[in-house]
């Protein structure tokens, strides 16, 4: 029996303790353990409740604009030669990225749990903006932790969060990026755990978060699978998505996990070099370890201290990766590669000029892999890329990089 693709084996994880094979679990201080149990119970009840699902579906449709289109990228495909490329347009969601799918789900859950205050971490600011948006909509107090380096890189999103009524706390510890924002958010949560809902933005941290965020994001793949079958009458050759924590990738991939013929590629941030500290390619440069609640691949030094990371995109520079990705990587179901800052910029320019779509720098990593892969495939092969976010927030970064 083929273990890797055996039917039913990949879609039914994690186990009841939140383990994806050896990965995942709950590695947090005791103060948070019972609150995590309560969260899991509340989520499992909501998942079974048709009323909850109907309310979420209504918001996804009427508020965020789902289903998002599947765009055939003809000019890009012609330019590259080879495979036909489709783009899943998560950039067309309200707030400009896939993050809102998860925030609507968890926001409704926070409401059901009677929490009045929501906290979140954010890297690129897209999750912070989506959280602030949902909190405004659902009348919840919102506070967002963001590394000061990221606040400089994504100034526009900081302003958007404040406009939406959220309080943004700059985090000056460590590398002043996503990892440090998560540390501060956890410190807030452990202090205010009884009144506060921690709305995590990716498939990270302790169980049940990786499972719950995946479930809320898997709407991407369910739609995309239906759309591609309707348009082409067959499944894609390969799915592609960028991987920071990995929520847009798992969101696209999940509905296809048991389609044995569909290959999947996750693209990590290759940064500016292959030395520790110059990238965020956890699968090529990291090893299994425990960071911020979960067991997964982690960029770290020989002494188990977490390494600094670099990426031109603020949304991909996390030192660890969702535990389900680690599991699917070890099982050989998903291949992981990386794109450098330079390749990413080239991809962003190419997509802008050929398709009239300025994507987020994060998503442009996936497009960079399309540039490498498409020419090697045949015209009847379909590539389906998750265009997870739009690039308005990155225009200044790109301009600065282009001018030298």
């Amino acid at each position, binding site marked *: 029996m083929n273990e890797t693709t055996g039917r039913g084996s990949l879609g039914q994880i994690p186990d009841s303790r939140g383990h994806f094979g050896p990965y995942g679990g709950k590695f947090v201080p005791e103060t948070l353990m019972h609150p995590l149990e309560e969260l899991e119970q509340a989520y499992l009840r909501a998942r079974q409740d048709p009323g909850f699902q109907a309310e979420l579906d209504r918001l996804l449709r009427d508020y965020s604009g789902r289903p998002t289109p599947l765009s055939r990228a003809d000019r890009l495909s012609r330019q590259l030669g080879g495979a036909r490329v489709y783009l899943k347009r998560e950039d067309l969601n309200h707030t400009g990225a896939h993050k809102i799918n998860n925030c609507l789900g968890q926001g409704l859950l926070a409401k059901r749990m009677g929490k009045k205050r929501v906290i979140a971490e954010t890297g690129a600011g897209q999750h912070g903006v989506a959280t602030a948006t949902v909190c405004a909509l659902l009348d919840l107090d919102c506070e967002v932790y963001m590394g000061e380096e990221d606040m400089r890189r994504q100034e526009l999103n900081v302003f958007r969060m404040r406009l939406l009524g959220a309080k943004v706390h700059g985090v000056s510890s460590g590398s002043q990026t996503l990892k440090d924002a*998560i540390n501060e958010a956890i410190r807030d949560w452990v202090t205010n755990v009884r009144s506060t809902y921690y709305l995590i933005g990716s498939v990270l941290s302790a169980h049940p978060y990786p499972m719950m965020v995946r479930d809320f994001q898997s709407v991407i793949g369910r739609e995309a699978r239906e759309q591609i079958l309707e348009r082409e009458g067959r499944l894609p050759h390969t799915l592609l998505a960028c991987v920071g924590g990995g929520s847009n990738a798992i969101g696209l991939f999940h509905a296809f996990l048991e389609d044995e013929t569909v290959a999947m590629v996750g693209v990590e941030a290759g940064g500016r070099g292959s030395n520790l500290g110059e990238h965020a390619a956890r699968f090529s440069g990291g090893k299994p370890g425990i960071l911020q609640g979960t067991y997964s691949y982690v960029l*770290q030094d020989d002494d188990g201290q977490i390494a600094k990371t670099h990426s031109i995109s603020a949304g991909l520079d996390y030192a660890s990766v969702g535990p389900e990705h680690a599991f699917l990587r070890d099982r050989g179901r998903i291949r992981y590669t990386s794109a450098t800052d330079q390749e990413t910029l080239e991809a962003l320019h190419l997509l802008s000029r050929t398709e009239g779509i300025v994507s987020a720098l994060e998503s442009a990593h996936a497009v960079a892999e399309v540039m490498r892969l498409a020419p090697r495939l045949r015209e009847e092969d379909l590539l389906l890329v998750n265009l997870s976010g739009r690039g308005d927030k990155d225009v200044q970064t790109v301009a600065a990089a282009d001018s030298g």
Partner: protein
Amino acid sequence: MTRIGQMFDRARQQGRGVFIPYVTLGDPDLETSRRVVLELEAAGADLVELGVPFSDPLADGPVIQRATERALDRGFTLEKGLALVADLRRHTQVPLLLFSYYNPLFAYGFERLVSAAKQRGIDGFLITDLSVEEAEGPLAVLRGAGLDSVFLAAPTSTDERIRKIAAYSSGFIYAVSRTGVTGARKSLSDEVQSLIRKIRSQTSLPVAVGFGVSEPDHLRQVWSRAEGAVVGSAIVRCIERNIGQPDLAQRVGEFARWLKGGC
């Protein structure tokens, strides 16, 4: 029985509270840590918690975060920390509890670490982010080596959780006085009393209270309800304030005497 268990027994017979200071290893350097631990023992420490610095101390407040940064900036490694423990054991029999997050211990190789730590003179481990749910493997290693495993109990812990924590713990149970991160506070929380009651109903293990214990009055309050009082951030802050002073260790010793004696 381990050094930790014997120490609690002795204190019980003598009818006194147990004083447990915390020191971040390598803050601001290893030689200072060595002197501070010896001074603390001279000042009446019954057990010393030795913190292994981790780059991402998510359960710690600003004081211990800064100590961690100082130690790592100076090139702390676990290997150097273990060498320091071996050195300390030539001078003192005070029980030593290794206190950290799981990743640096896991990266070293947990089995290899436990055997090295035992050989150097560590008496037990407390791993802040190792929940009982994930602890089965590490616990078996510690028990196999005859070292104590101390787990945290928190104000949010249910009776069911405390039952499991008690079953997994040996030496003592560390009661977290309030929800939150480590750090000195003006007053002790009321939550701790009901937590201690819950623990007592599940186990006869000694209980030590930590998080926010930072003044002589706090220690007396804790000792009226529990066997031990843990002082972390207040000690670390005293070290921080005296960095560069030739008599740093003595000053920390004086501070510890003041805390214990309340004069």
